[in-house]
């Protein structure tokens, strides 16, 4: 399982949300390493500069869980840049956001998001969504062979 070795990138500024996510990953026995970026700039630095960026893994993530509401460069900008970058656009990006507004959802799919999940307050529901996401993207789906350095 080559995919299993690829990291899952979580772009999430909120520590409590990240904690809850990790709890859900553990619950569903996620094998892949989890990388966290706290803001959009960090995420772009890693993705656009992978292989050269110091301190970052030499591989691209298998999937990205992207929060929209980020300090500085926000999630939509990150999504747009990644999807407009021929080297990166094949990475599945799952938007994971508080916003349930139709315009946010439409915008993200327009920009090329592969999936859109809303964060609910009820942890149980959130845990379940994460489970489904991992099962689908990391086990059921075939992912593209990402570029190797």
């Amino acid at each position, binding site marked *: 399982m080559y995919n299993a070795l690829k990291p899952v990138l979580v772009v999430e500024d909120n520590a409590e*949300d990240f*904690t809850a996510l990790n*709890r859900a990953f553990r619950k569903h026995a996620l094998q892949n390493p989890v990388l966290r970026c706290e803001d959009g700039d960090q995420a772009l630095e890693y993705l656009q500069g992978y292989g050269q960026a110091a301190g970052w893994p030499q591989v691209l993530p298998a999937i990205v869980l992207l929060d929209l509401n980020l300090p500085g460069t926000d999630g939509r900008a990150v999504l747009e840049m990644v999807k407009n970058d021929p080297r990166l656009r094949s990475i599945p990006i799952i938007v994971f956001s508080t*916003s*349930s507004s139709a315009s946010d959802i439409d915008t993200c799919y327009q920009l090329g998001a592969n999936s859109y999940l809303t964060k609910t*307050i*009820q942890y149980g529901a*959130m845990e379940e969504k994460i489970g489904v996401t991992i099962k689908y993207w990391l086990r059921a789906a075939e992912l593209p062979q990402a570029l190797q350095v």
Partner: protein
Amino acid sequence: MNLTDNDLITTPVTLTNCDREPIHIPGAIQPYGFLLCLDPATQLIVQASANTEALVGLAAEDLLGGGLGQLLGPARLAEVAGCLATLTETAQLLGARLETVAGQPYYKLIMHRYDELLWVEFEPVVETDAAPLDLAFLNAALGQMLAAPTVLDFCQHAAEQVRAITGFDRVAIYRFAPDESGEIIAEATAPDLPPWLGLHYPASDIPQQARAMYLKNWLRFIPDAAYQPVPLVPGLRPATGRPPDMTYAVLRSVSPIHLEYLHHMGSAATLTISLIDEGQLWGMITCHHRTPRLVGFELRELCQFIGKTFSALIAGKVRADQRADQLHVRERLAQLLERVSRADDFVEALAQPGPTIQEVFGCGGAAVCFGGEVQLLGDTPTEAQVRKLLAWLSENAPGPLFHTDSLAAHYPTGGPALRATASGLIAAALADAPGHYLLWFRPEVVQTVTWAGQNDKPQLLADGQIFLSPRQSFEAWKQLVEYTAAPWQPLELAAAHEIRQHVTDLQLKAFNELQARTLSLSALNTALERSNDELDSFAYVASHDLKEPLRGIHNYSLFLLEDYAAQLDADGVQKLQTLVRLSHRMEGLIESLLQLSRVGHTDLVVMDVDANEVLAEAADLLRPRFEQTDTQLVVAGAPWPTVRGDRVRLLEVFSNLLSNAMKYNDRPTKTITVGQGPAAPGGPAAAVDLGQYFLFYVRDNGIGIDAKHHGNIFKLFKRLHGQEKYGGGTGAGLAIAKKMVEKHGGQLWVESALGYGATFYFTLPKTI
């Protein structure tokens, strides 16, 4: 061709050259009297009329070179000689018996001095010479003339007086128009004569040189139009080699053309008196008789006196008429402007009676053309013609006010067709937008002239040649004034200008008000946008920045419960559970708020919606809960119509109302009636106009709502009951449902009494 008087003397006069006929030097007189011209220095006769022999038995040739002593006795001669010494152009009258002539006839000597000659004209005495100067009559006549309220009354009096004095069959008063054409405006006739009142004739009927002479010599007299002219002997004055100037001679022979004209008129004798206003020929008093008629000099003088009195007074009468007109126009103008100022729609008001723009001053018709609308008043061209005219005006009539009394001359493509209603036009441009005009129309003047003889057939000579007559003059005048309307008076133009000014001021005012309104609207809009933005940003902040920590609180409480429950006592566990519940509830409130803000600023997706399907879907969603709660759903007024609206939102409205109806009910058997159509009489719902709106209702047999809370229940987060009661909820559902209905243009309200169930009604406009 420039002819001298001398050339013309020997040229036959025709209608085409009569303008140049030297009528002041005919070299001949009318034969009812005789003429002697004397050298002023010697008082000896230098010229005499050829009829002296016929009248007094002395040949003209024999009189030449002698003095008046050949006719007068010494006493009279001395008197006349004294008179001759002081003569001017103004005639002096002396009666004299010709003592040296056989039969000693009595003659009137009419004497004046002109063209370096002393003129002595001998007129026989007439039987009609009664007491000429009747002061009582004159006094009454002048009194009447002074008291006449209008020009027309004044003219009528004058005509009647002259007829009373002279006994002519017909006395008519002509008035000249600015174009020198004439019109008969008053007449007094023998009862058996056809009237000429209203007749017009062309300027050419009175040649220029005749008009010039009429200004000098106020009175012309022809006692017998069938006379044979009597030449002077010699024809040319020896001292000058030309005929003497007979401008002031009463016996002056007139133009043969004029005699022909009189003949065709059926006039055997005429007397005309000039009416002169400030050096201009204003008109004439003309007298006609069917048989020759000799009027004595004194009576003619009296007529001339009346003419001069008339002339002195006419300007005042004309001014009085103008003042009356002016007052009339001013009054109506003031009424119109006042009404227009007060009107909500000033354009509309221009065409409403009391008065309309057409009634302010004399015109046949008018039109108010504004904003693509054309309102026609009175006699006007057709709407299509007016629209074409507007297009022409926009192209060809720059400036605020265009006026003409002959539209055809300016607008050859369309004008001629409008002659009957719009030979005259005033066009007041209202706005910079093309086609915004006030128009006043005036008919072709010919269409407005009526006269009593208009149905007479033009008379023809036997050989078919038309000759001159009043009727022919009228026909000739009609040809000349084709396509022409009565000219617009300065007063009328000023009124049109004032109406235009007033309306444009109102337009400007309206425009400024509109601008102010637009500004305040845009300010309102800005404020609204800002508050919308604020609500949006609040909602956004609420959904993100508030929800995040809330989720943290909620999750960590849960993690505590999951991971540390064993180390907590029951109280601790319960507190954590409360924390979880409260954070959950708060999220509900935030979510509702967000939803409400979205209803406000998201556009509806309007389409045809089958209301039956929407209801079925709402009922399906709620079915499990209806079954749990023993709730029966009854549908009334089915099948329901197809409505216009946003399907998703209508579904939300029904779901909300149905679940409320189910929740707020503590009866063992809960019944919800959902219906469509007319409501029972009594409540506000009965007043809904079902032609314009669909009416839906959701009725329950539940706990009801006290009237004092009917407003409150629609307020955001307003609950009437505790959170644990009736299934809880954030209290946002009705606020959201109401807002959704209002967004559609409908209304949502409740009719209920505490304890007797509630009916929620909402309307949807039939056209969105």
